[in-house]
């Protein structure tokens, strides 16, 4: 993919700076899959549940017209209680269907979205920027965040490397800057935020409780013999996933510049799951490294496929190609994993 990109003379600096932003933009959502995978619950196809919690938080923040960086922070803070409540309900459901979580999660996520559409259509929000321009009732499907907190995290401590003004700060910077004099923008603040979040999750799995989650994922019966309350551990893992997903959508929306309501989160789980699998995660053996690597590779492929498709063929190819990659990878992973475990406890 990279070779083709170079061949087509797409500016390398643009690719790298955009890829870095996309890494964080989607990385947090991908990160949210980790706790559930580690607890042996499987891929969280019910990601929309967490996403909706984040949307609620953001909508409240926008409704209170909190602008700037504080808007984003308050959106995240507000979305956490929503994520906790929804995550708890979600956990109760998933604990009931032990062993068949993936398909159930998919449909819980799917059915949750039209339910929330009711909420969006009737919710008592008052900010006219969020409502339908005519009638003044019900939320718009797409809310612009430009005057609130769009790109706030993106632009935090943005450093331009390799450009004319900063000169060469690092060897890599010079090399890449050499190809195209535009220089690459490194969103330091954003990367730092993502790094901290990854670190927090990694550290969490070092604590006693985190280890309990891993133990449950590896061998449930053994964990139970050791006095681990399995239901509680699974509940916490699911709630944690939901919370991270809520924060993830906040990051995604501020980077994208819009809040997308209604049916937009319907298919969000699949690219995230796919990115996770690209990174080399297989079942319970999941690490933060997989998240970062997977998101980076997956999103860069996404990014480059657009221009390449434009140059080579019809413009729709990019979108079709993305869908194909996404679903193909998940299918491959399912087939690969399924081959190993024949007849689990039926």
């Amino acid at each position, binding site marked *: 993919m990279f070779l083709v990109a170079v061949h087509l003379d797409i500016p390398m600096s643009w690719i790298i700076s955009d890829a870095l932003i996309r890494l964080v933009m989607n990385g947090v959502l991908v990160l949210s899959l980790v706790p559930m995978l580690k607890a042996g619950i499987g891929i969280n196809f019910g990601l929309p549940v967490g996403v909706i919690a984040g949307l609620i938080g953001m909508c409240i923040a926008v409704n209170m017209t909190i602008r700037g960086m504080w808007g984003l922070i308050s959106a995240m803070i507000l979305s956490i209680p929503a994520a906790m409540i929804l995550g708890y309900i979600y956990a109760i459901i998933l604990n009931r269907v032990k062993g068949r979580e993936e*398909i159930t999660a*998919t449909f819980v996520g*799917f059915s949750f979205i039209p*339910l929330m559409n009711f909420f969006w*259509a009737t919710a008592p929000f008052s900010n006219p920027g969020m409502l339908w321009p005519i009638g003044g009732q019900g939320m718009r499907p797409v809310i612009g965040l430009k005057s609130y907190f769009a790109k706030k995290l993106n632009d935090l401590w943005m450093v331009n490397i390799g450009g004319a003004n900063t000169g060469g700060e690092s060897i890599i910077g010079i090399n890449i800057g050499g190809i195209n004099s535009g220089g690459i923008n490194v969103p330091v603040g954003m990367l730092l935020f993502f790094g901290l979040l990854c670190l927090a999750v990694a550290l969490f799995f070092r604590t006693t409780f985190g280890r309990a989650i891993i133990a449950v994922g590896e061998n449930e019966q053994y964990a139970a013999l050791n006095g681990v309350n399995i239901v509680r551990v699974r509940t916490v893992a699911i709630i944690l996933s939901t919370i991270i997903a809520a924060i993830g959508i906040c990051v995604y929306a501020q980077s994208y510049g819009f809040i997308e309501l209604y049916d937009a989160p319907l298919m969000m789980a699949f690219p995230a799951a796919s990115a996770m699998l690209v990174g080399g995660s297989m079942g319970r053996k999941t690490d933060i490294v997989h998240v970062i690597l997977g998101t980076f590779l997956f999103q860069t492929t996404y990014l480059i496929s657009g221009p390449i498709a434009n140059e080579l*063929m*019809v413009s729709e190819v990019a979108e079709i*190609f993305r869908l*194909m990659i996404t679903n193909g990878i998940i299918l491959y992973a399912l087939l690969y994993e399924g081959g190993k475990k024949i007849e689990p406890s039926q």
Partner: protein
Amino acid sequence: MPCSMKGVKKLSHLSRSYEKISRQIGHINVVPFFFLVLSAIGLWFSQMSISFVLNEVITRFIRDGIMVLALIIPITAGMGINFSITVGALCAQVAMIMAIDFQIPGLNGLLFIVGLGIILSIVMGTLIGFALNRVKNREMITTMIIGFFTTSIYQLVFMVGYGTIIKPDNQEIMLSRGIGIRNMIDLELYRNFIDRIWFFNVGKIDIPLFMILLVCTFAAMVKYCTMTRLGKEFRVISQSHERASQLGIDVNLVRIKAIVASTTIACIGHLVYIQNIGMLNVYSAHTNTDIFSCAALLAGGATITKARISHAFLGIFLFHWLFIVSPQAGQNLFGNPALGEYFRSFVAYGTIAFALIMNYRNTESCR
């Protein structure tokens, strides 16, 4: 004291009989009753005439009936809901587009479409069967992803492949830029070709007898299939794979047969659907066929492990009834037709989620 003792005794007796009743009710699925109540409420608030709704329901019955029947065989074989009936639908669309491309008119065209569709769906069904044999106990999520994946390959072929690699005979179906097929293809040649056979009215209600008989024939075929030796093998497999292989049944082969049958029936079902509508929406006609068929089947009282023909028929009736009345009911109740729309997609997804949750909980408690 004796009086209160008596009371306690009576209470405990009552609670015991309540338990008995509830255990009995537990075997009957509550979903159809729920749908019945909802449909009645919807009809009341939508203020539609019953004859109109009945007409619509009959139309939907002949459109979607066979598709719903396609789900029954995999459920009998213990493979859960086959969401990859979308693949069968895609096979039908491919056959349809080929026929339009070669411009084969009339009955010959129809036979060509059916023949090609069946061949394609047998090939695809076998492939899906092999895939599903690798992922035992996770069939449903896999079939779903297979559905998505096949859709994207299909789109790639018809949006990009046509005009670049494949040269079409019929330029009318192409987009003006020369690459890719139009979104909508008019099926002038085949529209309502078989709908109008033995068509008559009873009062205000139109009855296309031939189509109803066609759906019933397929129902009888599925029923017959479950009665034969193969059907018994399906049932044994759904009980336990080990026991089946001890009995000398080739589990993997029988599972592939189940999926092939399901895909083929779905292909034919989608052909009936398309020719009834008369327009082929090339890129989106097949989307959601799986969800709606599955929701309809479950609405009729089927579960993930048990489905009968009666469930399918009752389910189509109830589900589409609700589907027809809900936008109008939303308009009348809340002054917003969109709410009715959300409600019906919630019902579609929610029914499946509910069935999954309830079913797996039941199997847990049985153990």
